[in-house]
């Protein structure tokens, strides 16, 4: 299962997280669904769908939190028959990120939750604080999304 990253600093924390939590799929992305790092995806299309849907779920639950006057939800956990999904934000100097983790029966939500905290802390430490990314111009917003995809799957 390949682990690829757009920016090198994210690779080491991701590998440790995958090893510790025993997760099957992991996506590290921006709240708009742009993927920074991934583990376990073979095809860009699947990754795109997962990223878009993960970002959408975070956006939807964020809006729900607003309606309830909550600041923001912590982690979201969906228990399935064969898989569980763990979706949680994590703040980094590079801006808020979202981590989507899909895990099987070989691990448990407790462990994933536990090691996600460590992973989030690691990402926070590893993320370079240099110039916050240039604001994406409206025109090439989509190009920017696709650029990260191509870099993930070019190697």
């Amino acid at each position, binding site marked *: 299962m390949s682990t690829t990253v757009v920016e090198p600093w994210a690779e080491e924390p991701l590998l440790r997280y995958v090893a510790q939590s025993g997760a099957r799929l992991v996506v590290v992305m921006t709240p708009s669904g742009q993927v920074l790092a991934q583990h376990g995806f073979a095809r860009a299309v699947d990754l795109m769908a997962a990223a878009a849907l993960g970002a959408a779920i975070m956006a939807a639950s964020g809006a729900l939190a607003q309606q309830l006057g909550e600041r923001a939800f912590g982690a979201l956990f969906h228990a399935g028959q064969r898989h569980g999904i763990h979706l949680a934000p994590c703040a980094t100097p590079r801006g808020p990120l979202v981590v989507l983790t899909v895990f099987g029966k070989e*691990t*448990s939500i*407790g*462990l994933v*939750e*536990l090691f996600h905290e460590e992973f989030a802390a690691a990402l926070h430490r590893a993320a370079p604080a240099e110039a916050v990314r240039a604001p994406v111009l409206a025109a090439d917003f989509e190009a920017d999304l696709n650029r990260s995809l191509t870099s993930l799957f070019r190697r």
Partner: protein
Amino acid sequence: MSDALQQSLDRLARVRGMRGSMWVAAEDGLTVAQLLMEGVRGKAVAALAASLARKVSGTAGAVGAGTVRFVQMETASGTLLVAPAPPDLLIVALADPQVNIGLARLEMLRAVRAVAR
């Protein structure tokens, strides 16, 4: 149910040297009830204890030794005690090295029986 769990933790906490006790869901590794002293990372203990329990019962199954009743892990700085309460609970205790193991084990097994009914 929850106060029964809490009472069993209170009794366990009275054993000298006990640093923390908790009920953990075996499947998820999430805490169900806990009575911890300061500084004990409950979430980590629960998750790891559950993982440990699952691995141990896996090994017991593999060697045909039947179901696991009690796990004791002694380390340099402390002792981790785990007793499965089928079908989906574990009682976990974290104690100093010189804790009265027998008393702690007795309380934990009594708690397991109380929950099983």
